């Protein structure tokens, strides 16, 4: 009996706490739009280098990505990259950005909640979301509400399809497949190709399908095609044996780095060492804790960004990222950094001010991004332009892993 009483008391207390939490959030949200601009800017840019008194009110940029959960590595990197860009822009004086990152745990429903919280905050432009399926859900809301959105890394075409307000900083999945096949053919990396892809994942399947059709055009022979799903992503011996017996000299892996690391380990155990070609999901394999980077030696991938590139902007960004977050930035960080700068340049060109309603900002930004004379130079490409569909045009760079680091090919 006593136990039950204690239990019910605890339950009652937790419910009260939950209710109080709800009340707090909903009552503080409307007022959050009101306070003085300087405090907004300060909260967006905690770095001390922010100018003492911003002359203008800050434009409110919302950010949504997985900051916790299984895809946190992508969301956190993108948030950090965007934060650096916001701090830099605010330090320049002139136009100020208020930056509000929200977590969606790579979950479509939570992403929409985060989007609604940002709307209450008074968001004018959305930088996000980072991952594809939440981005599709949030995109539908943003399209209905007329909010301009630029995603750093949600690469599926479903993200931008039929929505004039959605723009991408990354390549679309089909483009990656086509570019990979062309690159392999041009560089004569291999003639007999084996593919292992995740047939339960839209990203992986999307790249594979375009790769297969383009490979046929390029005269590449796909000798082995095998699949796995998230549930069977432990044992790859069958897939590797199939590739090995088919005599494949190049293994194309349009998958994320976690299963890819297993494939590399098991292939080595089976004395099979083909050339390995990956896509942007392979990025991160070197940051896998305790991973023997010797296994990834010689792995090639197409990625728009390499942290070791020698140009000044990349070097400065990598250094700053390393100082602030203690690790080497990946392409998600660079994509998000570019997103903020592209938004910044477009805002200046379109004459966006902090007091404009989001819908007006949206129309002006769409017009600017799709204008023929708007092109953007960033860490992940030069002379980037956007089609009316929201798709970016930029050239992928081939990278190869040598001595545990990316080197341009």
């Amino acid at each position, binding site marked *: 009996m006593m136990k039950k009483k204690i239990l019910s008391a605890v339950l009652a207390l937790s419910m009260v706490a939950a209710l109080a939490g709800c009340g707090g959030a909903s009552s503080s949200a409307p007022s959050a739009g009101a306070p003085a601009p300087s405090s907004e800017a300060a909260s967006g840019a905690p770095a001390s280098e922010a100018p003492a008194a911003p002359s203008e009110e800050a434009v409110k940029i919302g950010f949504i990505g997985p900051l*916790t959960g299984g895809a946190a590595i992508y969301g956190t990197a993108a948030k950090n990259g965007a934060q650096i860009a916001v701090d830099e822009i605010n330090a320049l004086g002139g136009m100020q950005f208020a930056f509000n990152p929200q977590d969606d745990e790579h979950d479509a429903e939570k992403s929409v909640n985060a989007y609604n919280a940002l709307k209450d905050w008074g968001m004018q432009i959305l930088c996000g979301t980072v991952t594809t399926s939440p981005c599709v859900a949030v995109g539908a809301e943003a399209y209905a509400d007329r909010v301009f959105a630029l995603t750093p890394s949600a690469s599926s075409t479903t993200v931008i399809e039929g929505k004039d307000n959605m723009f991408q900083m990354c390549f679309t999945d089909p483009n990656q497949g086509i570019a990979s096949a062309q690159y392999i053919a041009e560089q004569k990396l291999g003639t007999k190709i084996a593919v292992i892809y995740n047939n339960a994942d839209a990203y992986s399947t999307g790249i594979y399908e375009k790769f297969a059709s383009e490979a046929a055009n390029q005269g590449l022979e796909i000798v082995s095609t095998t699949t*796995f799903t998230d*549930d*069977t992503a432990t044992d790859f011996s*069958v897939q590797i044996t*199939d590739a090995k017996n088919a005599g494949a000299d190049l293994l194309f892996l349009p998958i994320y780095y*976690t299963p890819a690391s297993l494939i590399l380990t098991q292939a080595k155990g*089976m004395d099979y060492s083909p050339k390995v070609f990956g896509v942007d999901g392979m990025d991160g394999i070197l940051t896998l*804790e305790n991973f*023997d980077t010797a296994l990834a030696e010689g792995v090639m991938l197409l990625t728009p960004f390499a942290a070791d590139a020698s140009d000044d902007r990349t070097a400065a960004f990598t250094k700053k990222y390393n100082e602030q977050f203690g690790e080497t930035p990946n392409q998600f960080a660079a994509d998000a950094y570019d997103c903020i700068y592209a938004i910044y340049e477009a805002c200046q060109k379109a004459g966006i001010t902090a007091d404009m309603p989001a819908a007006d900002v949206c129309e002006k930004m769409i017009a600017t991004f799709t204008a023929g004379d708007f092109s953007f130079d960033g860490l992940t490409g030069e002379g980037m332009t956007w089609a009316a569909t929201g798709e970016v045009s930029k050239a992928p760079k081939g990278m190869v892993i040598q001595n545990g680091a990316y080197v341009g090919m």
Partner: protein
Amino acid sequence: MAFLSYLANGISLGSVYAIIALGYTMVYGIAKMLNFAHGDVIMVGAYIAFCATSYLGLPSIVAILLAMAVCTILGITIEGLAYKPLRAAPSLAVLITAIGVSYFLQNAALLIWGSAPKSFPSLVGIPPLKLFEGQLIITGEAIVTVIACIVIMIGLTLFTGKTRMGKAMRAVSEDKGAAQLMGINVNHTISVTFAIGSALAAIAGVLLCSAYPVLLPTTGSMPGIKAFTAAVFGGIGSIPGAMVGGILLGIIEIFGKAYISTQLADAIVFSVLIIVLLVKPTGLLGKAINEKV
């Protein structure tokens, strides 16, 4: 040659399932409850071994013993806090609690070790066996897993058959109330069962991650479900059944992938399970026990 290689891989994968299934079947056979948190105890064991070797630099054998000790304590704690208060409750309540414990462990691991995957160093120092001029390669991990699986199976059979504690376990399994009247400490017996099951989970975790070296907070859940399937396949509650079920499941999975389709691997595994259960509802080696009404 490909056939032999697939067979070797199937037995290796199946042995991992079998060790996990032994833990499931042990707890089910004696406490008559499905411990769905078993897969997550495996994950905790693997993380402990990972930390011991990678952060503390301890030798493999010490790391494995440490993982076993931590998992044993964890198993007894879970049993004491979550399952013991529900001893008289309907089995559905215990089942839901077990699922709750499973989520609790996964999220606790997420908080402690973070969401980024970790690459597990193989704790098996045996070089691969190369046969037929290198055409057939059997990894050291596979050899150790198969041997460990057989040793554990024989050990458990002897333990439940020959020792006093084993007798007490069988008595509790048959009738808790009667066992108590005979002077058997039921709570203590069930705690020991959990302790053994959890120690086995630690071994399974280390072997699973040595063979498939990616460690995530969700690492244990899918192998856990497959192993549960294996335990049901072999006849849940039966110790040799768990081993036979696990190894067969591994072989079917690999052969299904190799000779039918990689896309349908799981569909094939579960269709076989359904067919077996239709023909023999108690599983391959399960005993038909009349339900007491």
